[in-house]
Every structure is written in structure tokens, then in C-alpha cells.
């Protein structure tokens, strides 16, 4: 079979040059026609090996891709779970804030017998020798004492000044008239 095939190929390729064709024909026959059984088994083994390698690579690729897809899906789920938890958290903050509103706390305090303190109810106790660590905001700071009163921001316009001058002149004329 190989012989006739190679012969045909050789004829096809080298038709214009009969010498080369004949030489090639002989070489093909020499190469493929001898020891047919061994050649087939090698080619088959190579083919099987190739297919096996392809299968291994393919399955590796597929498993990797599937793993990516699963992981990504898990990440997506986690993101949506996180968002849902954040929403629940916001809702809980809202509920807590609603329970902690001053009118509600005040009403509840009154219910259980408390009343608002007045200034007269407060007693301050001074402890000699104790210096509270009070963060008192002072009225002025050293920096403030350096601030000078600003010059008045008064911008008299030219037209205003002109009006004033005209008014003064007219007033003088009026006084002359009187």
C-alpha cells in the first residue's frame, strides 16, 4: 500500500524530472516498504502517546478551568453574602437607633419613675488635691492674642462718594438760600 502511495506522490511531485522521481521512488520504497510490522507499531504507539498526552493536558486544563469557575462562583456568593450582611447590619443599626431615640428613652425613664434633673438637684463635690484631666476649651489662645482687630471692611464706591459730595454741595446751596 505504502509503495503505491509513495510512488504516486513521487510521480506527482517530480513528474518534470524522471531521474529524481525514480530515485525518490526507490527511497520511499526502501523506507516504508521494509519491516512493515515494526513501522506500524511505532506509529500506533506514537499516536497513542500523543492522544494520551493530549487527554492529560485537556483534562488538566478542564479541571483547572472548572476550579476557576467554582472559585469565582464562591467569591461571587461571598460578595453577595457580605452585601446581604452589610444590609442586615444597616437595618440593625437602624433598629437600635430607633430604640435609642431620646423621646423613647425619656418616656421609658419616666415610666420607671425617673424625672429630669434640674440644676438644683446637682451637687458638685470638690476634692482637694485632685486635678481632673479636663480638656477645657479656653476662650482665647496665645495665637488669638496676636490677632489684631481688622481694619473695617468698608468699601465706598465712587458713585456713592460722588452722591455724598453732591448732597453736601446742594445742602450748602440750600443753606445759602435760607
Amino acid at each position: 500500500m505504502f509503495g503505491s502511495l509513495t510512488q504516486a506522490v513521487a510521480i506527482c511531485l517530480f513528474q518534470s524530472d524522471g531521474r529524481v522521481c525514480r530515485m525518490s521512488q526507490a527511497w520511499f520504497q526502501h523506507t516504508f516498504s521494509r519491516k512493515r510490522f515494526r513501522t506500524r507499531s511505532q506509529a500506533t504507539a506514537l499516536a497513542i502517546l500523543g492522544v494520551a498526552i493530549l487527554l492529560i493536558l485537556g483534562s488538566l486544563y478542564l479541571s483547572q478551568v472548572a476550579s476557576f469557575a467554582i472559585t469565582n462562583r464562591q467569591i461571587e456568593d461571598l460578595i453577595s453574602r457580605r452585601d446581604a450582611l452589610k444590609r442586615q447590619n444597616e437595618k440593625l443599626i437602624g433598629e437600635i437607633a430607633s430604640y435609642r431615640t431620646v423621646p423613647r428613652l425619656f418616656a421609658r425613664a419616666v415610666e420607671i419613675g425617673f424625672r429630669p434633673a434640674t440644676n438644683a438637684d446637682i451637687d458638685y463635690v470638690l476634692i482637694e488635691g485632685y486635678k481632673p484631666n479636663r480638656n477645657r476649651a479656653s476662650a482665647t489662645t496665645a495665637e488669638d492674642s496676636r490677632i489684631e482687630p481688622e481694619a473695617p471692611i468698608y468699601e465706598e464706591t465712587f458713585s456713592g462718594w460722588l452722591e455724598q459730595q453732591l448732597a453736601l454741595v446742594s445742602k450748602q446751596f440750600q443753606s445759602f438760600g435760607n
Partner: protein
Amino acid sequence: MQGPSSQKATIQARLPFVAIFLILLAAYLVINLANFQFFPRSVRQELEKIGNSITNTTLRIPAERGRIYDRDGEPFAFNVIQYRLGISPALVAAGYAESLSETLAEILDLPESEIIRKATSENVWEFLAGPISAEQGQAIAALDEISLGLEEIPKRFYPQGELAAHVIGIVVDDGLRGALGVEGAYNDTLSGRVLDLSVSNVPFDLPEDRPAEQRGQDIVLTIDRDVQFWVETELKNAIEEYNAFRGTVIVMDPRNGDVLALANHPSIDPNNFLEIADPNLRVNPAINETYEPGSLMLVLTVAGALEKGVISPFWTYNDTGYIEVGGRDIYNATYRSYGTTDVTTILMSSLNVGATKIALEMGTSNFYGMMRAFGLGQATGVGLFAEERGELRIPGDSDWSESFLGLNSHGQSIEVTPMQMITAFAAIANDGIMRQPRIVRQVINADGVEDARPSTIRRVVSAETAALVKNMLILVVRDGAPAAELPGYSIAGMPGTAKISTAVAFEEGRNAKILSFIGFLPADDPQVAVMVKMDRPDADFGHQVAAPLFRRIADRLVILLEIPDDNVRARLTDVEANLNGSNN
């Protein structure tokens, strides 16, 4: 007939042409292939876009709006999620519409017949319900029904309800844009960035997460929730007691300009702002509306004159009860003459003639210069939405006349906001230094906390002038407005009475006045300043209604802000002085 050699010769003769043709064809193909590989940028982008449109979906992700807290971290505004529900009738499985409608009717509390009608409609899409709560949304999502579409709607929630409603403001446009109050003024800070996120449909691509910086920044206010509550409670009680039309109270720390409370009554519920029938209620009278301040202006006139050296604390004049300025007659409110009168009496008795005399002594340049220095005619920049700047007409303005100098000196023909007035008084309380009033204390973003440090606008008057005026205001409270006095505390303050002016004249009648009081305490070391303003109450003078309200508020403030009385503070000062002495 041609022989083989002739055929061969013909072929050989034609071969170069065929070869050349084939070479040219190959070259053409190669050039086209190269062109295809190296498109111009615009074409490449267009092709990428087409490619992305197949493999990617663009999602518009609304930014989560930042929260608003009071100074102690109590939430004033944050977000909750609601849903909008729709159905694709074509995707409802045959024979399943009824059972689906029954389930939905139970969850949504809607008539089943209506849901069936929509579920079997011929339309591609039918709106079912919305906004629905997060619980309802989650129950529907759990059905895992392909024909149902849930769309998230972010909703702003104000857990404190009406408390500080005008300070916080509202959001409009489906929660995307802030209006009024801090929501409006700090919209850019709070709103974050709306993202158009390109999400890959390819399952092998890593899922996109929304970036943290997309979220709006949180804001911490200077408002103290407890102070705000008591101020609103007392204001509401006073308005009912005096049958006033409305009222405003501002509480400020003069040492740093922090607004601790800003209350208006009547107020609004920002959770239901669409249901507010009267649009005027959405206006914050503390900053969005102006009024003629009346007698309160006397304090600024006197302080300005003392600062300019035009008068001394011992300056007197002969009060005849009447004065003419620029062709206009100005009378005292009581139409009485007071004879020889000193500066403190001008303040105590709110003498329009005395104030006019002082303004005339100052002259236009000094007077208007000082009024501008006190911040009149300019927005304070407190950090609230659409603040009014008031109206201070000065010489040169087309509508200014000479009589304005006299009228302005006692608070007529001049428009101010309550925020401007308390800021000016706070400057006197703070030894003459005007602090920038502020409502925002901190901004919290992904990078951390940014403190808004208190800032100084300017020194308006010297410490000596401020001390002189403070002493006068202590006497004003003692002898002119004793209802403002708080036992154990030195109070400095000034009541104000202003007629309500219309386009042509002043309104007449008992309820045609705005009565106010501004005071600060303790007078020797002011830690808090309070402005009270009541519109159209059943009373004639500020010391009758505004001063008692000031006292009630001050009574609460000294407890809430832990301000000891004068005796305790004096003893504390002694103890601290002894401690410092012994340490040295």
C-alpha cells in the same frame, strides 16, 4: 496539432505570468492580513467594545451614601435597602401563575387577583410592587423564581425622626441627591461616586467587587443629640404657651464656633418629607430666612462705637425721645424721653434714639465697617444648604439713604439671619474673636478621620471692648430681663423686639412682632451662647417670652454640658491654682 514540446514551450512561456499573478495575489493577501492585524486605534476600540458587549455586562452601581452622626456617634442618617418588584409574564411557567400569585399575595399583602392579572398579562414586563421592605425582598428572592425581577432601591433613613430635621436635610431623586441641611450642603462628600462597572459574563474571569472609595464619606456633626432634644422640647412648649407662629433656637459654643443645637418649630419629618403639605416648613429659618433684628443690633452698635473710641463706657447724651436722621423721624419704642442717659441704659431700655446718636457719632464709614466686621451682609459659612447672606445696605448702594444709618443702628431696614446674630454675639463672648461657626466636626472616609479644626474668622473687637460690653450685658439681664437669670450663674444677654415689616410699613397688632433673646453663660467665662427667636407670640417684648425660654434652656444646658455654677467654678479655680502653686 501541437506536439508535447510545443505544449511545454507554451506552458513555459505562460508560467512567469501565472507566477507573477500568484505572487501579486499573495502580496495582496499578506498586506490585507497585516492591515487586519494593525487596525487604527478607533477601529480597535470599536471592535473591543463589540467584543466586550458580548462577554461583559455594564452594571450601574449606585454609591452608598455616607452616614451622618451627632458629636457622640449617634446616627442621624443612614441607608436601608428596599426593593422594587416586577414580573415577566412570558417566563411564568404554564399553570404556575395561580400558585405563584398566591405566594406573592401572602408576602406582599396585595390582592391575589391583581397579581394574577399581571402574571398572565400580554406585556413583556409588569411592575408588581415597590418600594417593598428588605424582609419582603429577601422572601421573594428565596423563591428563586426566574420570572420575578427584584431591583434594589437605596433608601435614606433618619432614625431620630423630626429631631434636628432642618440640620440634617433630606435626599431627593431616589436618594441620589441631597437637599436642605447637611445633606444638601455636603452632597458631594456624602454621595460618593456612581460606578458603571463592566462585569464579565465569562465564568472563568474573577468577579468584580465594588471599590471601597466609591462609598460616600461619613460626617460627624457638632450637634449634641441630647442638647438638641431638650432645646426642641422647650421650644415646642414655649411656642404652645405663648401661642407663637413659630420659633428658632441656636446653641453655640463661642470658644470654637460649634453649633450644639439648631431647632425650629414647627419641624418636618425627613422620613416622610413628600407628605409635607406646606413647602415653607422645609425652609430652615435659622439660615434660610432673614428678619429685622430690632434691639439686638444695639449691642453691635455700642460694641462698634466703643471699639472705634467714638464713645467711652461713661458717655452720655440727652435723650429727648426723638431724633431726625436723613429727613426721617426716629422715636424710642416707648415714645418716651429719658433725659441724660448712659450707654448701659441705652441697651437696658432698648433706646432707638440713643443707638441712632451713637451711629451718627460713628459716621457711615466706622458704623458700616464694624457691621461688616461683625459679619452682617455675609453668609456665615456654617455648612448648611442655601444660607442667606442677609441685607446690609451701605452708602453707595442705590437703595441706601441717610436715614438708614439711624435705622440700622437699632435693627431696622437691615436683614439678618439668626445664625449671623449669634455668631456676632459669640464673638463678643469669646473676648472679641469671631470663630467660624460650623456644623460639621469630622469627615470619615476610607483613609481615616479628617478633623475639621475650629477656625477663626477675625478679631472683631479688642478683649477690652468685649469685656466692657459683657459687663453691660450682665446688667441688662439683671435689671432689664431678669426672667433670663439662672440662679448661681452669671448671665450676659440682650432681649430683642422687632416689628415685622411689610413692603410698605410695619405690621400693626399684638402678634406682629419677632421677639428674641441672645445670651451666654457663664458671663465671666462663656462656654455656651444661646439665641432664642419667636415669631408672632402673644407678647410685646423679648424679655417677656424669649428670656424665660432662654432660662429654661440654660437650666438644661448647665447639666448636659456639665457647667458648674459660679461658686463651684471659683472654688475649682482656687483649688487648681493651689495645685499649680504647690507643683511649682
